[in-house]
């Protein structure tokens, strides 16, 4: 029973345009949300996070939006660059809990 779902296994976006990656979770008790990025033959690396007391967090070209009522998380990348081509995982947890539950991942391809 998947608690965290990323319904798009892959996404292709033109360089310079906006990339939007989506993530849905089932348990409303989760209160801390993260995005990780993974290149081939490397481990995932942290990208950005947000707590449930916020609905938006920005870091440069990356913005994460949280819609608690819909139990939906999204990552916006603007503008998209070729180096953004990777697999993106969303992850959820609770404050004080070191365990993360990951989604299935979305492979983003930026087309030059």
């Amino acid at each position, binding site marked *: 029973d998947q608690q*965290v779902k990323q319904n798009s296994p892959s996404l292709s976006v033109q360089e310079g345009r906006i990339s939007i990656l989506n993530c849905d979770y089932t348990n409303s008790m989760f209160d801390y949300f993260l995005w990780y990025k993974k290149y081939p033959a490397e*481990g995932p690396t942290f990208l950005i996070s947000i707590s449930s007391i916020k609905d938006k967090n920005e870091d440069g070209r990356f913005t994460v939006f949280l819609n608690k009522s819909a139990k939906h998380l999204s990552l916006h990348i603007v503008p998209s660059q070729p180096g953004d081509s990777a697999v993106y995982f969303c992850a959820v947890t609770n404050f004080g809990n070191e365990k993360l539950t990951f989604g299935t991942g979305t492979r983003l391809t930026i087309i030059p």
Partner: protein
Amino acid sequence: DAGITQSPRYKITETGRQVTLMCHQTWSHSYMFWYRQDLGHGLRLIYYSAAADITDKGEVPDGYVVSRSKTENFPLTLESATRSQTSVYFCASSVVRLWDMGETQYFGPGTRLLVL
């Protein structure tokens, strides 16, 4: 160099053999984790450890054994490998915080395991 390392990076073994994947971190992080990555499943937690000599099961622990005698090492053993354990295995570590925004787990580069 500081960081988290895994060995071997690639391993081919046969069904029924015992295999041990190694994980070493130099940060003295208290928490360590083992995940497997499979297509369609993302990253699934196998086992984790809150400190030396403290381990607990994750989502998919069957067929795996862990130990943690030292803070910096967290080996994962497949006692009798099966084809369904063919996967990419990632080790991660994190530090206990009261809480702050930011990075949680740091991942190693992964071990690609093929069970024939």
